[in-house]
């Protein structure tokens, strides 16, 4: 069970956060700030009905996508600049599957609804 810690890290028993840790913590703070801002914007748009109809739904949709991207970047540390791309490819492939299944289901059900109820 002994981690690799014992050997290489005991030398400088870490009591103070390193500058590396401060950068990581700042990244999480950025994520929190951005996510809070995007959340407040989305709720504000919906509650105060700044504009309405499809434009409103498009706006809150874009805000949600932006927040997902922000959380991927700052909380999950997944971005476009990584040397290893498997994780990003897995996410994009999952996105494609979701697009086909969800988009297809909604298309079929909406069409059915129109034909049977319309």
């Amino acid at each position, binding site marked *: *069970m*002994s*981690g*690799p*810690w014992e050997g*290489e*890290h005991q030398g400088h028993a*870490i*009591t103070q*956060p*390193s500058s*590396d*840790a401060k*950068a*990581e*913590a700042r*990244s*999480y*703070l950025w*994520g*929190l700030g951005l*996510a*809070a801002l995007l*959340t407040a914007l*989305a*709720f504000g*748009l*919906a*509650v105060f*009905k700044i504009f*309405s109809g499809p434009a409103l*739904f498009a706006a*809150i*949709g874009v*805000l*949600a996508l932006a*927040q*997902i991207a922000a*959380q*991927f970047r700052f*909380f*999950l*540390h*997944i*971005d476009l600049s*990584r*040397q*290893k791309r*498997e*994780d990003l490819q*897995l*996410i994009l*492939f*999952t996105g494609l*599957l*979701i697009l086909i*299944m*969800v988009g297809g289901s*909604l298309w079929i*059900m909406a069409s059915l609804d129109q034909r049977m109820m319309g």
Partner: protein
Amino acid sequence: MTTEMRHHPGINLSHSRPEDERHAEVTVFGFWTFLMNDAILFALLFATYATMVNRTAGGPTGAELFDIGNAFVETLVLLLSSFSFGMGAVALKEGREHPLKLWLGVTLVLGLGFIGLELREFAGLIGQGATAQTSGFLSSFYVLLSIHGLHVLVGCIWIVVMLAQVSTFGLSRQVRSRILRLGLFWHFLDLVWIVIFTTVYLPAVAS
């Protein structure tokens, strides 16, 4: 952002412990694959909800039922818990056990608070006669929300288990690796919640 190599999603325990990275790379990728499966499950629940949202069978609609203030508080609680887990991950990376336990504890309290808020919301809805049996809309609403809530509950149990393991084993390699994966799980649940408030609560209050 640092230019260090990222081997896997979530916080990387850094270059100083290469065997950690090799171990984490494979297990984290496997866990990430599971999470993407879970994402598809949620996506199809969203598709079901979108199909059913206007099928109220004469019962109440979302616009009549939902309390947007409560949804906003739930959103903030879950977002803060995602952040506090991140701070715990920074402490983990530094090998600082006490801050790690503290942040995990904060995350646990926020997670349980979220579940409490959700249960209170459900109780309020059921008190108004809006049960899962009322309409297709409410059936799909309860299924979507409680599957997410159950995930949060599982995350809370997982946090308790990890707190016990940190106390018992210290920050061994296995324990660190498990906390990494718990972190991915926890952040993922907040991602799902973004889609929930965007597709369930906001359209209801805006219409």
